[in-house]
């Protein structure tokens, strides 16, 4: 009788110990190093989601690369949407602070990107909710999309 109770207690202790190690480490890894995300929408065609709604690309978001907020022109990044903080959008960095951008469909023809901001656009011009709609974007974004895992596309 006492032996089986001791067994249960030891099992619970091991479970709690494992839980408090595994969960924080996993969460920290996903927040700070890298995580996986599925891309939806057609604003980055043909680079991402070339198949449209039939197959969504799965990408690796590299958080480690942007820990100092350093991006280059041409990087694909994932950001919190300025219109809806619950949504994330994936776009390409076109210009950094200080650059002058020739816009497509923005109210001003030429825009100078202010300090601490970046200009992002989707590759599929005209079908993209990007800086041409909401202006230059404040810099802290979610992560950098480094790899496209093509062989994991969902059908």
């Amino acid at each position: 009788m006492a032996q089986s109770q001791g067994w249960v207690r030891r099992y619970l202790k091991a479970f709690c110990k494992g839980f408090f190690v595994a969960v924080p480490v996993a969460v920290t890894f996903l927040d700070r190093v890298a995580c996986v995300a599925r891309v939806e929408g057609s604003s980055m065609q043909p680079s991402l989601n070339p198949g449209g709604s039939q197959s969504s690309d799965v990408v690796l978001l590299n958080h480690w690369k942007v820990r100092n907020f350093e991006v280059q022109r041409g990087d694909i990044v994932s950001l919190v949407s300025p219109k809806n903080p619950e949504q994330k959008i994936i776009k390409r960095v076109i210009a950094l602070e200080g650059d002058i951008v020739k816009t497509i469909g923005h109210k001003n023809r030429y825009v100078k990107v202010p300090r601490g901001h970046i200009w992002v656009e989707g590759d599929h011009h005209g079908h993209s909710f990007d800086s041409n709609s909401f202006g230059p974007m404040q810099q802290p974004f979610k992560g950098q999309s480094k790899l496209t895992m093509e062989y994991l596309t969902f059908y």
Partner: protein
Amino acid sequence: MLRGALGKTFRLLGYTIQYGCIAHCAFEYVGGVVMCSGPSMEPTIQNSDIVFAENLSRHFYGIQRGDIVIAKSPNDPKSNICKRVIGLEGDKILTNSSSDFFKSHSYVPTGHVWLEGDNLKNSTDSRYYGPIPYGLIRGRIFFKIWPLSDFGFLRDSPNGYRFSDD
């Protein structure tokens, strides 16, 4: 002896990683202690006060008008600012001081908030750089720890007239 030392090093490394990760989760998802600097929130928060900030409201989208929040600075992503939320999306904001004869209003766009410091004369806030996206908010300050003479929950805004009633 070498095996013993190696084992100890690995164990120490393991504990460091584990506690580091727990600390990251606590600061990111629960809250932490923050030291504020600058005069823009006087008299509510003085220079080099220590306050307690919580991050749960941000994750559950529960930031309200009148909350004091910490946000990433729109001009410099590496620094933080500490201001009070005057307006949420859709609110009407007075964009000039009350002494002007013609009052001009603007509306806060969707997904943005309007921030102002309590020390209106000495604060660079949304009156200068416009409304900031909700995604830049890091946490909500609700309790002051230091100095002990001012220990306790934070006061309401001394600039009540800045909240426009509809």
